[in-house]
């Protein structure tokens, strides 16, 4: 798909690199984001997503037509993707306490794939995941891709309350709930990794393009790190 630039309001445009989730499109998104930051355009902020980049600009400096032209030129000047694009970003290791008490869907996923709960945990810790986008809620990182032998569809009926720090899987994505909220993803464990604590000024240190690995920890380690084993309602 050729990149397209579409209006996204009086003060923004959105650039689509694909209409599907793909690693290459996501790399392009971040490549353009970096190129825009280095350009002379008066960009106010950008919203990188899976395969699109939304760009807010200063309308007292540029018109919609001018911005489209300038962004198009920048896209055309982007170099071909190479290994450096794949390797960009930081790597984070996120400790997770995987257990039935804090991960009520471990058994469901195990049953789905005909394996044990231990194997589900091993599989989640086996691969590294790319942060594709942050958003929906503060500090919520969409990570992928979850291997086929671990994927699980969303719950038929969402739970009314998922505790903060819950580690979740939905289809090809994995994520952590930064705040207690309703949700329909499969919950397999819990982390104390700081994602969003507004009172303390903590906001997710993960960025789009970063790499995440999960590491299983014991209940004692989890509690020592300040974790709560608050049960599900």
């Amino acid at each position, binding site marked *: 798909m050729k990149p397209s630039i*579409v*209006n*996204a*309001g*009086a*003060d*923004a445009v*959105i650039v*689509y690199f*694909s*209409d*599907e*989730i793909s690693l290459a499109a996501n790399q392009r998104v971040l490549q353009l984001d970096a190129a825009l*930051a280095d350009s002379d355009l008066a*960009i*106010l*902020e*950008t*919203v*990188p*997503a*899976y*395969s*699109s980049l*939304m760009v*807010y600009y*200063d*309308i*007292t400096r540029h*018109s*919609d*037509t001018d911005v489209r032209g300038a962004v198009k030129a920048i896209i055309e000047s982007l170099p071909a993707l190479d290994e450096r694009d794949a390797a960009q970003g930081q790597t984070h290791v996120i400790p997770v306490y995987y257990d039935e008490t804090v991960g009520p869907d471990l058994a469901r996923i195990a049953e789905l794939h005909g394996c044990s709960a231990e194997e589900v945990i091993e599989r989640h810790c086996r691969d590294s995941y790319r942060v594709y*986008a*942050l*958003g*929906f*809620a*503060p*500090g*919520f990182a*969409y990570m992928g891709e979850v291997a086929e032998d671990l994927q699980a569809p969303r719950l038929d009926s969402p739970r009314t309350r998922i505790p903060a720090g819950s580690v979740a899987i939905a289809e090809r994505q994995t994520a952590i709930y930064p*705040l207690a909220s309703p949700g329909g993803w499969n919950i397999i464990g819990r982390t104390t990794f700081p994602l969003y604590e*507004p*009172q303390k*000024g903590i*906001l*997710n240190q993960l*960025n*789009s393009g970063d790499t995440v690995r999960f590491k299983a920890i014991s209940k004692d380690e989890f509690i020592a790190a300040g974790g709560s084993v608050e049960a599900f309602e």
Partner: protein
Amino acid sequence: MIEVIEPGMYATIQDFGRLGYLKKGLTRGGPIDENAFLWGNYLLKNEAGAAQIEIVLGGSKFKFTSAAAVAVCGADVTLKLDNEDRSIWETFQVEAGQVLTIGPARSGLRAYLAVAGGIQVKPQWGSCATVKREQLGGHRGDGSALQKGDTLAIEASNCELTQRIPWRYRPDYSKPPVLGLIPGFQYDQFAMAEREKLSFHEYKISQQSDRMGIRLEGPAIEYAGKGLVSEGINIGSVQVPPNGQPIIMMNDRQTLGGYPKLGNISPLDLSRLAQCRPGQTVQFTRVEVAQVQQQLTKYYDFFGITPACQTDH
């Protein structure tokens, strides 16, 4: 200081909003009737984004422990300073010890109480805007609304000369607004007959509207295009969920979403939308982005707004 004697149905601290953190998932927040908010600060010669109290439907009571110049703009509420009448859309003096009562709104939904110098609240990520869903902002810093007994810091000030908004600039919130739609996002992927429904029909404001989004009820708009991968959402984006009933996203919108969007309402028309009550009707008309940008530039210039990002990323 201002002491909250009665917050009313829902009163929150709002400044111009949290800018520059969309890529971390923080929404903007801020006054959803930006026009009324800006007039309040303009009258008091405040900075354009100085913090005010956004009051839904009125019914609030505030005691001032220091003298202050104030103005209330927005919804058509009655004002009593102790037992004396005061008017909206103009400045007046409150003496230490006096109580300002904001009565029920006769038209409109949200009134803004502005104080000279702004309400002093500690910013979080550059703003004190209250966003309930994010448990962020407000004077407790946790997204909660004002409660009975809360005290808010203000600077003592005097209202030297009454400043008033000329009649011709005061909106009539009882009239159905016409909302300008700038086609965008998936507009071209809607069938022509579907996307034109907005222009040819009236839509009613649903009861289920809040600072996140204003839901409309009317002829369902069908989207037969491809399913979407989550992408950015603007303030004013017109989302069409599977039931076909459009939702206009407002200041507390989530930053990413996967519903198709027809485009965006002109920011200049969102203030009028923010004052619509459930059951009121709205109409749409198609507008060109170039025209909206020209109007907005003049508007920003008048109110002394410099579009800027509060962070350097």
